């Protein structure tokens, strides 16, 4: 999402924000979390390119996001959707496919 937002790389984080999201399952949690981030970007004029998860389960996630505050976002992403949504468990991590509404 950040690459679509054309964020300037290598800059020190000027925006730090805590996020919480909930969902009835892992897939819903993922989409809800991404939409939390997009909402903050659109309303606060911030773009995030790094995050640190402090709490995560199948139904709940808490994370701190770091980014920049250009004032207005160049984001053309309107939302993360549930369309063709996939979350796969690999040997060591998860892989997800999320279709974004642009």
């Amino acid at each position, binding site marked *: 999402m950040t690459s679509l937002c054309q964020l300037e790389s290598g800059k020190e984080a000027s925006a730090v924000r805590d996020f919480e999201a909930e*969902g009835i399952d892992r897939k*819903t949690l993922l989409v809800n979390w991404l939409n939390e981030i997009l909402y903050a970007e*659109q309303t606060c004029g911030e773009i995030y390119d790094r995050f640190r998860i402090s709490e995560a389960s199948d139904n709940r996630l808490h994370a701190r996001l770091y980014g920049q505050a250009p004032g207005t*976002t160049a984001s053309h992403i309107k*939302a993360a959707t*549930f*369309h*063709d949504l996939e979350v796969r468990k690999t040997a060591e991590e998860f892989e997800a496919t999320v279709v974004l*509404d*642009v």
Partner: protein
Amino acid sequence: MLNKHNLVRVAEYVWEIPPTFREDMRVPARLYADEDLLDAALSDNSIVQLVNTATLPGVIQHAIAMPDIHQGYGFPIGGVVATRLPEGVISPGGVGYDINCGVRLLISGATVEEIKPHLEEIASSLYANCPSGVGCRGHLRLTNSELVRVLHEGSRWMLEKGYASLEDLDRTEEFGRMSGADSAFVSNRAHERGRDQLGTLGAGNHFLEVDKVAEIYDEAIAAHLGIYSGNVAVQIHCGSRGLGHQICEDFVSRFQETVRNYGITLPDRELVCAPFDSKEGQEYFHAMACAANFAFANRQLLAHMIRRSFEEILAGRIKGFELRQVYDIAHNMAKVEEHEIDGGSVRVCVHRKGSTRAFGPQSAVLPDDLREIGQPVLIPGSMGTASYVLTGTAGAMQQTFGSTCHGAGRVMSRARAKRIVRGSELRQQLRDRGILICAGSMSGLAEEAPLAYKDVSRVVDVVHRVGIAKKIARLEPIAVIKG
């Protein structure tokens, strides 16, 4: 994999996928298209998505696709799904993210020759008066109580504030106010996103367009609508902005649990739904109606600002430039309607996502002066091509729950269009053809290049020939304003 062999040709422009194609289908899926448009539909995943909608609980008669069908999120764009009430479902994905995205057409008594010397000034004024682009803010910032009134009253609130005329309301679907709105079911986030967006176009495929009436197909009906060859018209294409988007997002997320609770199994999670008469279904309907009213008010305020631009530039220079409203249609909406099915009247929830209501003559929901001719249907083409005015027909009432197509229909993704088209070159090419472009973003302009869309004339010819709308007039652009 679905291909042409899975479709049965039931009439010259009508194709059907029988319910035996997949065991979860409850009704056949039906597509209106000529051979080329069928090939275009088969080139993406839209027909599979159409088949998916034929699995919804309560779906009745057919899941229907218009000739401009293309792939959407969950539901295809260019689809109609009616569910039998009370047991049938309502689905936020069946309406789409831009609730009550629609088109308004204004017509001037002035001709293109009279307006053309002032066109650059008009376009600049429209660009200034009608904010566009992602996240743009309008000139009107609403208080909490004003926003609630907009959500409940739509264009009627605009009438009270002097931004609309009674004639505007008469010439708007639902008279500019969708009943059933209750802002108690609209989230704080949706309120916040909508508060400063009234009177804005947004981005994507939304636009303002100054057109000339290029051709008339039915003189009598066109005259009834005030449309004459050579006159200037203005189209507005936009919807409920961030507010409607947030409502869709809220309910698609919430309904992930709802479908579990009701034991509904679906082939795509974006199709989530709830029984229409359930608490959850009603709450979505109340919220959706709020977004619909916001969109009616949005297009109404834009119409007011367009009239102001015309007044600022043309007053004292030419006569008869005033803009009257031909009609305002919604093409993303769910509505409760009565339709004749198998000789009886049935109450249904009709989802039109990328489809226009096209009620025929004698429909009781039309104002008196339109009852004779049927509801005007407004079909915008891709930028730089043509747009059409049609009217609803008895054929649409019989075949498609009073519905028809909504536009040209995309055949190329936005990303691919941006890769192969340069916005600045496209703007020059259109200018060379006499079409003035005011756009905030050259990449946004490239996304909307005409080659990214089907041929709108072909789409309109299909709906005209199968009798689910009747061609009245063709419009051609002379200036386009985009985000």
